[in-house]
């Protein structure tokens, strides 16, 4: 279990992180979301004990990070922001160093290094100097370092930052593969990643938790969840259609939104997001001789919620 209790951190007069508490169990992947500067990295650094909190505490696997950092870190893999690596070492030497620090020796060490190289697709650059590698490779080298000892806990600060779409996909596959046995925290501002990977998401803004839910529930929190989008031909009379939709029972409000050539788009919001209004709208349009091109129910998007909560 990774536990954060009331983590708070001031930088001079600024409060970067303000009273963050959560705990995650094995099998959970926690997505840590927030705009740049919201306090994601600072929180992760406090959990790893790299910086100390102004108030509050963190523990990993029952070991308090402040009083017993070595025991806490033994069980943990950490991928810091920007994936730091030693540029003048080869990939193998770097991983060999990290494995040595973790106390592996001889055949076991070689095995761990080999496993990490294979999992992170580093086979073709094993003996290359890290400074000659592309950003994507450097990221994976540091990623390899974090999973080398098969830790119970993983803390990764933007693990897919700087990767191309194929590499992102690979990294996500790796993360998902490992997820059953581990507790993980992943920070990102890519919302697809949260939907694709995480069992739980925390959105932080200005150092505070503003949402802590499963990705599905988060989508329901978006204000456009349950909204309906109705498209008409340009020949339709928008005024008539709009007044007709507005009168439909269950519709809170409606407005014309799209201005695309050859199309008229109207968005309608329900009074109650859990009660579908799509049927009522279709029926009431039909009764008034209006024929829409399509009627689509909005799922509610994480992007929208993210923007609503963090701006």
């Amino acid at each position, binding site marked *: 279990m990774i536990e954060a209790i009331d983590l708070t951190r001031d930088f001079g007069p600024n409060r970067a992180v303000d009273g963050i508490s959560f705990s995650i169990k094995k099998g959970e992947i926690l997505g840590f979301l927030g705009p740049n500067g919201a306090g994601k990295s600072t929180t992760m*650094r406090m959990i*790893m*004990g*790299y*910086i*100390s909190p102004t108030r509050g505490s963190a523990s990993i696997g029952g070991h308090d990070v402040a009083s017993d*950092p*070595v*025991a806490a*870190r*033994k069980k943990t893999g*950490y991928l*810091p*922001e*920007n994936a*730091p*690596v*030693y*540029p*003048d*070492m080869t990939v193998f*030497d770097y991983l060999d*160093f*990290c494995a*040595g*620090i*973790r*106390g592996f020796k001889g055949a076991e060490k070689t095995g761990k290094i080999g496993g990490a190289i294979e999992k992170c697709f580093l086979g073709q650059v094993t003996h290359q100097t890290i400074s000659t590698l592309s950003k994507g490779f450097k990221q994976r080298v*540091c990623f390899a*370092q974090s999973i080398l000892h098969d830790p119970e806990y993983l803390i990764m600060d933007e693990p897919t930052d700087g990767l191309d779409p194929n590499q992102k996909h690979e990294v996500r596959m790796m993360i998902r593969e490992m997820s059953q046995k581990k507790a993980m925290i992943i920070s990102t501002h890519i919302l697809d990643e949260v939907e694709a990977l995480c069992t739980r998401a925390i959105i932080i803004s200005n150092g505070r938790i503003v949402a802590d839910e499963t990705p599905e529930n988060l989508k329901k929190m978006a204000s456009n969840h349950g909204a309906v989008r109705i498209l008409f031909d340009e020949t339709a009379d928008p005024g008539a259609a709009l007044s007709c939709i507005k009168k439909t029972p269950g519709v809170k409000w409606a407005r014309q939104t799209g201005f695309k050539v050859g199309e008229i788009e109207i968005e309608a919001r329900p009074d109650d997001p859990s009660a579908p209004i799509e049927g009522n709208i279709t029926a009431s349009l039909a009764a008034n001789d209006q024929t829409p091109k399509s009627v689509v129910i909005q799922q509610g998007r994480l992007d929208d919620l993210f923007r609503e909560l963090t701006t």
Partner: protein
Amino acid sequence: MKIKESMNHISVIFKRELKGYFSVPVAYLFLIFFLLLLGFFTFNVSRFFESGHAGLEGFFQWHPWVFLALIPAVAMRLWAEERRMGTIELILTFPVSLFDIILGKFLAAWAFIGIALLLTFPMPLTAMYLGSPDVGAMLGGYLGSFLMAGAFLSVGIMTSAMTQNQAVSFILAIGVNFFFVLAGHAPVTAAISGWAPVWFVDMVSGLSFTAHFMSLARGVLDLRDILYYISVIFFMLLANSVILQNRRAA
């Protein structure tokens, strides 16, 4: 078990660091300058050949000055570089105690300077070829020089932790080291003896890197001189760990 683990951590860091020295040209430049400077002072200033004396005093007397200029250049990168590359976050979140990391880094740099000292081997060989020098004094000189190098280095590694700017670290180290070199010299003691109590003057001159070294180089193997350097090194490394601890909170 804890000690064994510590030893392993120190040795892993030691090996990485020492190997790192030889993968960058700075190390070779250092070795070349070190040998050139010592050679120049010994032969052109102390006039080793013309002195008609088969001893290494004229060689050892320059060590504090050469160390003063060159050791901060070796030490300045020890933490500043890690901070610049961001790897400090990696190394400080490994399951390793902070002091083990500091010790591993320090010992590697010290060993590197030890190698530089060993490369001066033609000096004692020449002296032994030309006459019959006091071998005890020569060995004492090398031991003293190595210990003194460690003291210079421990100051440098501490100032390196204070800043991410290598130039600032370099200048700070020279400043602090300069004090330690000059502490025993007459102008400094004269300047403070006018107003300070005697015990204070004694304390300041007792802090001198040079005085303890010169007595070792005369072949006087005094445990107090050795303890002096060991305690300076230990104190500076401890200060280093306090500085890094404080940065976590700052």
